[in-house]
């Protein structure tokens, strides 16, 4: 039994127009038939362009909004009534914008203790001790509990958000672009922290990101979304070695590599994302797909099994030319050697030697 089991989830928003009498003029299909599972201790990454429905999916999983249809089962139970209370404790969230997601009037200690109060866990003394422990876990100091959010940098605020999410010992943490607003150096600190915590507590993550390199580093499995639907899902290694959906391939080709030897390999995908109010008929990607055929314009491809653990929604998945993954050489030898020296020196400092 999976920890989280999402089936055919949809969220449609009516679009109204008119000032006196608001008439519904259309529907935004923000999430349109999404299914996935997350196992214990696993990280599922959800990727896709802006507006494809990632955050809406996250809010549906957290039950911050009601689905139009579909079900969410958590630990075997459909989420409603009493199960909702369980979900509220066992599924926590970390948002992209640490500035907006912390209450500026609460001391950091109060912010971190809040979920424990809400769920009636412990008393004032034990909660205080737990706050100290959590601060240490996320790499902050005990005295930080007395400070206010504005006294912290972006990366530190994200650590506070993570401490708060951990406070009630969740099984699943929904991370909605937790590192997208951070500098690479700080992003690396937070990504390392999330991985350490996962190992330590056996956490599962629903990890939302638009940076595929971060995803490759964090995820066990990846689901690629386009216009409210999942178009491909596969174990990380498979997805990056042999992406099958033309959209996944296009995303990978669009990423510039931090390696001037590979300059000029970026190939832009043409066109803009169509409006989720009027998604194209047939395959939603056909307006931008270089392989589109007549059938693509008429029939909607379903997400189907194509290999062990891999599912793709493309009529032509079997016949498309194989994607030439240029794996690159990694860093130059000199750079690799110097990075190793850097890591060793850092290690020595951390352990107090040298």
């Amino acid at each position, binding site marked *: 039994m999976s920890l989280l089991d999402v089936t055919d989830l949809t969220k449609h928003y009516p679009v109204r127009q008119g000032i006196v009498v608001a008439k519904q003029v259309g529907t935004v299909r923000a999430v349109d038939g999404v299914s996935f599972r997350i196992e214990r201790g696993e990280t599922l990454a959800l990727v896709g362009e802006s507006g494809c429905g990632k955050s809406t999916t996250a809010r549906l999983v957290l039950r911050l909004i009601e689905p139009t249809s579909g079900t969410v089962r958590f630990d075997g139970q459909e989420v409603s009534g009493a199960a909702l209370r369980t979900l509220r404790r066992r599924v926590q969230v970390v948002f992209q914008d640490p500035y907006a997601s912390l209450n500026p009037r609460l001391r950091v200690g109060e912010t971190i203790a809040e979920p424990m109060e809400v769920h009636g866990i412990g008393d004032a003394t034990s909660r205080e001790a737990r706050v100290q422990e959590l601060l240490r876990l996320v790499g902050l100091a005990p005295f930080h509990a007395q400070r206010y959010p504005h006294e912290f940098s972006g990366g530190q605020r994200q650590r506070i958000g993570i401490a708060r999410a951990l406070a009630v010992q969740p099984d699943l943490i929904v991370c909605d672009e937790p590192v997208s607003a951070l500098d690479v150096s700080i992003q690396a*600190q937070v990504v390392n922290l999330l991985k350490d915590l996962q190992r330590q507590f056996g956490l599962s993550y629903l990890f939302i990101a638009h940076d595929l390199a971060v995803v490759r580093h964090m995820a066990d499995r990846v689901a690629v979304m386009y216009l409210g639907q999942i178009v491909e899902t596969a174990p990380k290694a498979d997805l990056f070695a042999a992406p099958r959906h033309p959209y996944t391939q296009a995303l990978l080709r669009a990423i510039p590599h931090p390696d001037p030897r590979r300059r000029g390999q970026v190939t832009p995908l*043409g066109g803009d994302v169509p409006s989720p109010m009027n998604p194209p008929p047939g395959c939603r990607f056909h307006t931008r797909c270089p392989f589109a055929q007549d059938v693509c314009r008429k029939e909607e491809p379903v997400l189907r099994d194509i290999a062990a653990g891999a599912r793709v929604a493309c009529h032509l998945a079997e016949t498309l030319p194989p994607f030439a993954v240029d794996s690159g050489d990694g860093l130059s030898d000199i750079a690799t050697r110097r990075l190793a020296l850097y890591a060793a020196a850092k290690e020595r400092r951390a352990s107090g030697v040298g």
Partner: protein
Amino acid sequence: MTPLLEIQGLRTVFRSANGDIAAVDGVDLTVPRGRTLGIVGESGCGKSMLSLSVMRLVPPPGRVAAGRVLLEGRDLLTLSTAEMRAVRGGQVAMIFQEPMTSLNPVHPIGLQITEAMRAHDPRASAAELRDRAIAALERVRIPAPARRYDEFPHQLSGGMRQRVMIAMALACKPKLLIADEPTTALDVTVQAQILDLLRDLQQETGMSIILITHDLGVVAEMADEVAVMYAGRVAERASARDLFGSPQHPYTLGLLGSVPRLDEDRERLLAIEGAVPPPFALPQGCRFHPRCPFAIEACTKAQPPLEAIEPGHLAACIRAPVESAVELTP
């Protein structure tokens, strides 16, 4: 041939109760003709202040306190306000991260482009300007440009708006385009379109580009020369090939180690501990020393000068190259 732009000893400060604090503190840079200089560094390193200084658009109470900005030998810092206005949007143009803040929301985009053109060509007729604006939109690959001409900024996607900004910036055929994080707010797919466009336009016009970004992937893809900035100063300067091939400064190493890669599996990323110090709380000596794993006593004493470690490859670190530093450590 002289380079298109030479920045010498640039220092940009803000007045505070405790005297001037420098956001840019003694920067020397060169932008060759027809080439792209990439400037990288974490948030708050002074990248935007540097580019605003070149444009003489530093918001008060900030001001350029020292240095020279030589555009084809002419010091922009000594020009009159009127002369500088002619340079801006003439020989030098700038685009920003969020095009929405630089576009006027209540005017159709076509009008905004023709206004920019009219400022530099007051005698052109309305019909002529319209044709040229539509051609400019077409050049930045906006589909159905004649129809888009009458649309408002909010009717366009983020990528389209950035194209409109580029069209406006290029309307007067600048020799230098300063692009401050032009793709940071965009999806990778749209970023790829914009980078491709910038590269084609550079080939076509021979303009130079200063590209500011914190994405090392974008730098590797676009830049010929790279400057790594830290706390208001240049930490390392080299060709893109040398910078990635043989990174010298520990800060550059930290940045490279922080980037997750698509072509390599690493269990842990090599993060840089701590954060960039704000300009009012700079450490003594090398500004990177509180975060630097190679720091020694001497690093806390004096600011290391930017010196050639290899021909054409400068770094401001007394211990570079780091392998020799490690050999010396018992």
